[in-house]
């Protein structure tokens, strides 16, 4: 242990002893946080769209609590993850007060940097426990402590070019399992020449295994189980990767190398018929291909096996408070203002199409209107239906980043070198176990 770390730790323990000594001999002092009026200034870290929407909410918040100053900063995604990590590695130096954190990074911060995020139960977070979509509260809590309030809850979706499938004589709404998707894809390619979907086969971006992860989540599976064991090559994983291999072997998968740009250009060109993407993606299609209005539809994805699930919350983001924040009460009040008021969430949905985890927000008519772009479908209701179904809690663990890299590599082996799905996943699972000291559960 180096000297500096030692000093920090001893300072911490000394402080801890002091606090408990004070607490034991006198009556518990009144906890000021909840009752006190928020004051002072706070900094909020987020990125792009969400940051812009929070900026718009600041005046209302300040009106409610005059004298408070809120500085919302657009740190950028993914830059924000590194910046938070570095701040935590520096013992909280230079961190914002309110931190916008994705579900994939939250566990790493909680586990690797104890005390890095504030425990929100001391600020009264428990009263919001029942307000959010299923599974959300479990996602932000750990051993009786709550580390964040949920913001967006993205469900698995299945966006498709209805016109192309019609030409191929396929009724997409009647499809129930992914094997039928493959059959439909073959017909589609014969009749229209379009690929069924695109995958970043060479893993040029870290999110290239999105579809694999999505198919695992549809089976209540993930890269880790609740005990933190590695579960990449469980039957669920092998089933997911086998579907991807079948799609590829049938010549239905276009190469999405290059990530976002390529995806947008394939949408514009119209040579890929399906985008298996979450809630927020609808707005992206409408924004980038306005001329294809009326050609797209959306449904919940088919199940992996007959009778299987068709709903899954595939990712979510949250607002946390830095443990180092000197103004946690105000920071928490701001997070409450943004996340627990239906008005705030409806405003954000209208602005950037970010789907709330806050269930009360869905009472607003905006979620029940037919969408002009999506052929008059009631998009909001489709995804709301998904949110209301029982959801599996995903354990991302502190090692999600490592798992993601290995799964990307395994998928590349399967798609580009014809590797056997089970063998490629087994190799990835063993590597992950070796890197992290976790056990493999098969």
């Amino acid at each position: 242990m180096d000297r500096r770390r030692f000093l920090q730790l001893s300072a911490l323990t000394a402080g801890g002893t002091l606090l408990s000594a004070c607490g034991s001999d006198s009556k518990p002092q009144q906890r000021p946080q909840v009752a006190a009026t928020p004051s002072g200034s706070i900094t909020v870290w987020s990125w792009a769209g969400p940051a812009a929407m929070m900026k718009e909410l600041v005046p209302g918040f300040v009106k409610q609590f005059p004298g408070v100053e809120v500085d919302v900063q657009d740190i950028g995604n993914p830059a924000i993850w590194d910046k938070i990590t570095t701040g935590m590695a520096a013992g909280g130096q230079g961190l914002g007060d309110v931190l916008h954190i994705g579900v994939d990074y939250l566990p790493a911060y909680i586990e690797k940097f104890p005390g890095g995020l504030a425990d929100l139960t001391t600020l009264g977070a428990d009263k919001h426990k029942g307000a959010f979509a299923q599974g959300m509260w479990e996602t932000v809590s750990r051993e009786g402590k709550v580390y964040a309030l949920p913001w967006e809850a993205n469900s698995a979706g299945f966006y498709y070019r209805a016109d192309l499938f019609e030409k191929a004589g396929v009724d997409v709404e009647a499809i129930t399992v992914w094997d039928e998707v493959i059959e439909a894809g073959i017909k589609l390619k014969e009749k229209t020449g379009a690929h069924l979907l695109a995958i970043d086969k060479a893993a040029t971006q870290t999110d290239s295994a999105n579809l694999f992860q999505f198919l695992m989540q549809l089976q209540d599976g993930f890269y880790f189980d609740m005990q933190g064991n590695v579960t990449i090559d469980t039957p669920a994983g092998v089933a997911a990767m086998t579907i991807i291999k079948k799609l590829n072997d049938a010549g239905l998968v276009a190469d999405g190398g290059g990530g976002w740009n390529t995806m947008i250009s394939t949408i514009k060109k119209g040579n890929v018929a399906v985008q298996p993407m979450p809630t927020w993606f609808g707005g992206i299609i409408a924004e980038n291909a306005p001329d294809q209005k009326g050609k797209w539809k959306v449904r919940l994805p088919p199940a992996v096996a007959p009778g299987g699930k068709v709903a899954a919350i595939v990712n979510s983001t949250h607002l946390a408070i830095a443990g180092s924040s000197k103004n946690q009460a105000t920071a928490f009040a701001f997070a409450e203002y943004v996340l627990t008021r239906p008005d705030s969430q409806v405003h954000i949905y209208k602005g950037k199409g970010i789907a709330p985890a806050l269930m009360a927000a869905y009472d607003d008519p905006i979620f029940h209107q037919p969408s002009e772009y999506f052929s008059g479908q009631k998009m909001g209701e489709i995804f709301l239906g998904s949110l209301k179904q029982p959801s599996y809690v995903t354990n991302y663990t502190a090692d999600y980043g490592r798992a993601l890299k290995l799964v990307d590599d395994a998928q590349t082996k399967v798609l580009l070198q014809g590797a056997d799905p089970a063998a490629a996943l087994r190799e990835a699972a063993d590597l992950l176990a070796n890197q992290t000291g976790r056990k493999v559960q098969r």
Partner: protein
Amino acid sequence: MTLRAMKLAPYFFILPALALFAIFKLYPIAWSFQLSLFRTEGALQSFAGAANYTRLVADPLFWTALRNTGAVLAVQVPIMLALALALSIAFNSGLLRFRSFVRLGWFLPIVTGPIAYGLLFAVLLNPQSGLVNWALGLDIPWLTDKFWARVALGLALTWHYVGFNAMVYLSRLQALPADQYDAAAVDGAGVWRRFWHVTLPGMRPVIVLTVVMSTIGTLQLFDEPYVLTKGGPDNALLTLGLYLYDNGFRFFDFGYASAIAYALTVIIGVLGIIQFRVLRDRT
């Protein structure tokens, strides 16, 4: 000027360099070894003895990185240096017109930074719509296929470094005594024999120098694979430097990253000693 001052003067001149070197090089090198004996996860740290090193030996990705580096050393470096040698002879030839233009043109890539030319090559070699595939009328999966990604890296490295090495050779060629050539010519030695018996032996010191420089540079390779494919596809361009960076600064596993760094140091040290031996023995 007193004798005492004369004696102290050299230390005054070298002191800044020595002090900075000790603080920012020697001390971190020692610290790095200490770190490699700890298991780290973010802010958590515990003594682990040799655990990081046993993990390293059992880690297939470490060996993948080593193999990738070895492939560059065994294939790209010899091809590039042979090409550089041929170029230097052409540069030196009395028959060459537009000589300074040609030399400068070949030399210019070296002033372009690795990130800049890496980005440029990534765009030139874009499989769907890059200039290279368009000009060749081919559909080569540069950067998305394991084999072709390695070829792309080799092309980029060669483009960047070959001219510099050729100029190093050229400066030695120009320093070779002309009378040896004349003697060889009088003996009626052919072009090839003259190259083999006169030019090549005379070039040995610079050839070894460039081999050593290229070896050290290759073992530390980071920028080009990082910007071309971030080490992919499926770790085809993973180098020790990239693997170290990922472990240290993406996953904040400082202990393991330090163990990788030390392994790299030992490898470079051993290769360096072998190559310097060759230099000493033969010249």
